């Protein structure tokens, strides 16, 4: 593999990311399964870096999951999106940052469709006024939350308490990055690094001392597939796609996986558990799996946040081997405590994976 070839491509796909003043919208899946990641994003950007990231309780889903499960028409999702954009303008913002890749892809697609079909945009603007009494607006810049962390990666690395380096060997940690299909597969120029060799996560990993593992099925979907997961009868689709990725990355012995999209870390974490329970196979060292992190969790660990504040206890694959490699102190006794040290029991142990 010739690294300079990738660098050349990265240099060609650098999108403009404003430094400050964003209207922030949450993700259906990230806030449900990784709420601490959204909290970490806001804490890092607002408190550590002093940025203005504004959130209003009045924003909602973009409707993307329902739309991609074919439950709502395109006009519905477009009007919900128009409502989100209108709220942004109403609160005096022109930069929009979203916490979800499905949303990000859908925003890019919607803006493109409006550009191509002005009569449709006009209709959506009218519907928005009729249903919500809001004025139609479009963001000047639209970024995914990971784009912002990428943009701040060197500032974050300068504040690092831990590096993505194995403290026992001094070697860089080997990281698999998983981008999430809707980030740049539809609009390569909208993603940092493009569609084939995206740099948004690789840039964070490199800034923090780690090294990125490129494996044959790197570009393949995690297997969410919307209806292919929501309906129990279809879940074999989801599982088989994750399985394919793990079989492909196994020979590279990655220390952990970092993800961009809110759904992917759930699937890549949970299907490892299912593969282990069904077949006894684990992909990490011994009976461990490969820890799967969100990028907020990764950067949170780098900045010295407590792993249990970041929610790593809510993953099925334990992050402890990674914490040990990074030299992070943690208290196993506090792992499953509730707020203010409240004892809320602990999950049952899976039989095959730790």
């Amino acid at each position, binding site marked *: *593999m*010739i690294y*300079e*070839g*990738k660098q*050349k*491509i990265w240099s060609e796909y650098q999108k403009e990311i404003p430094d400050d003043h964003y209207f922030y919208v949450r993700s259906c899946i990230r806030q449900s399964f990784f709420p601490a990641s959204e909290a970490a994003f806001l804490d890092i950007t607002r408190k550590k870096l002093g940025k203005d990231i504004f959130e209003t309780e009045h924003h909602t889903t973009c409707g993307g999951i329902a739309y991609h499960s074919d439950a709502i028409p395109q006009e519905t999702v477009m009007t919900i999106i128009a409502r989100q954009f209108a709220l942004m303008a109403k609160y005096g913002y022109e930069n929009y940052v979203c916490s979800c890749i499905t949303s990000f892809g859908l925003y890019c697609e919607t803006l493109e469709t409006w550009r191509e079909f002005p009569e449709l945009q006009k209709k959506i603007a009218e519907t928005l006024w009729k249903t919500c009494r809001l004025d139609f607006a479009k963001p000047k810049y639209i970024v995914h939350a990971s784009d912002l962390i990428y943009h701040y990666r060197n500032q974050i690395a300068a504040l690092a308490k831990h590096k993505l380096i194995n403290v026992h060997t001094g070697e860089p940690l080997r990281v698999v990055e998983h981008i999430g299909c809707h980030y740049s597969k539809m609009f390569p120029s909208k993603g940092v690094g*493009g*569609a*084939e*060799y995206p740099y948004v996560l690789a840039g964070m990993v490199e800034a923090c001392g780690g090294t990125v593992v*490129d*494996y*044959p*099925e*790197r*570009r393949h979907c995690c297997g969410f597939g919307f209806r292919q997961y929501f309906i129990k009868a279809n879940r074999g689709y989801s599982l088989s796609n994750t399985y394919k990725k793990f079989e492909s990355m196994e*020979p*590279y012995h990655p220390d952990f996986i970092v993800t961009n999209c809110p759904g992917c870390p759930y699937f890549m974490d949970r299907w490892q558990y299912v593969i282990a329970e069904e077949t006894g196979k684990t992909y990490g060292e011994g009976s461990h799996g490969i820890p799967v992190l969100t990028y907020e969790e990764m950067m949170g660990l780098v900045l010295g946040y407590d792993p249990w504040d970041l929610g790593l206890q809510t993953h099925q694959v334990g992050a402890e081997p990674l914490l040990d490699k990074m030299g992070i102190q943690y208290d196993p006794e506090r792992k499953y405590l509730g707020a203010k040290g409240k004892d809320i029991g602990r999950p049952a142990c899976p039989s095959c994976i730790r």
Partner: protein
Amino acid sequence: MRNNVLIIGGGPAGLEAGANLQRLGYNVLLVEHSNTLGGHLGKWDRLFPGGTPASAALDKLLGSMDGVKCFTDTEIQSINRLGKSYNVILSNGITVLADAVLVATGFDLFQAEKKEEYGYGIYDHVITNADLELYFKTGLDTRINAPRKIGFVHCVGSRDEKSGCRSCSKVCCATAVKQACEMKAAFPDAQIYCFYMDLRMFGRHYEDMYLEAQRDYGIRFIRGRVAEVSENIDGSLSVKAEDTVSSKPLKVSLDLLVLMAGMRPSVSGQRIGSLLGMQNEKDGYFEVLSEITAQQRSSIPGIFLAGAATGPKTIPDTLADARGAATQIDKYLSDIFPKAKDLKQLIKTAW
């Protein structure tokens, strides 16, 4: 007084037109921006369909150039209409008054790294058709290491709107079949695949070459465009395509992948085009006055075209096109400069 003809471009088209115009009695000046004559032909090893050595073809072209003045390493600095002629200033300080100009600026190979999903310049064992010809000539390429499974990818930078190249590059299908057979001859144990969309074996003997590839060389033809390439841990390549004949996705591991980089309008030619104010067609190549009856004429009087400057061509196509251009130029000069024609006649009869 003999008319001056300026030829811009020293590839096969420029050379063949130059030799013919010289024979017709014109004063020919050929300007080449690089340091050698021969263009892409000079970098090729053998030519389809019969395997003629490219060097033999080039030697023949160069051997017919008696009397043609050639400037290599020379650019056109300016070119302006002056009466019936063109006043041309060259980068070597020489000024020429040309009565006709032939633009034979050829093509550039598509930059295969732009087809990012194929990993040229990133994966260790991905090469282009041009790299392979150089290997055939020199025997040197560290990326080619006793390959046992080899793939040829047709249509790289051709018939691809994502790469901004809608048109077919015409020569790649035949080149791929030729190179596949040559690789089989070089590595008899190798299994070789050609991934194609349509096999465009349009020329005389090309279909025979295809038949031989299947029958005598055991080349496997898979009807499906390569969608994605990645590198395995052992450095081999994982290649995905659909076998559209059986409607099944296909993944194969290969030791070497050869990208059939297509033709694009040459960048240096486009510069000449803008100096002259010539129009391009949608495919980026120069506009011709009529695609049926006046292929070698531009819409500007006195400016002629030959070779791949007006779209992808094989070597024989290019040479025929160049000879056609020479005839067209001769006709034009005879019509526009009748006195010069008389002189020519006089010289001919006198001698």
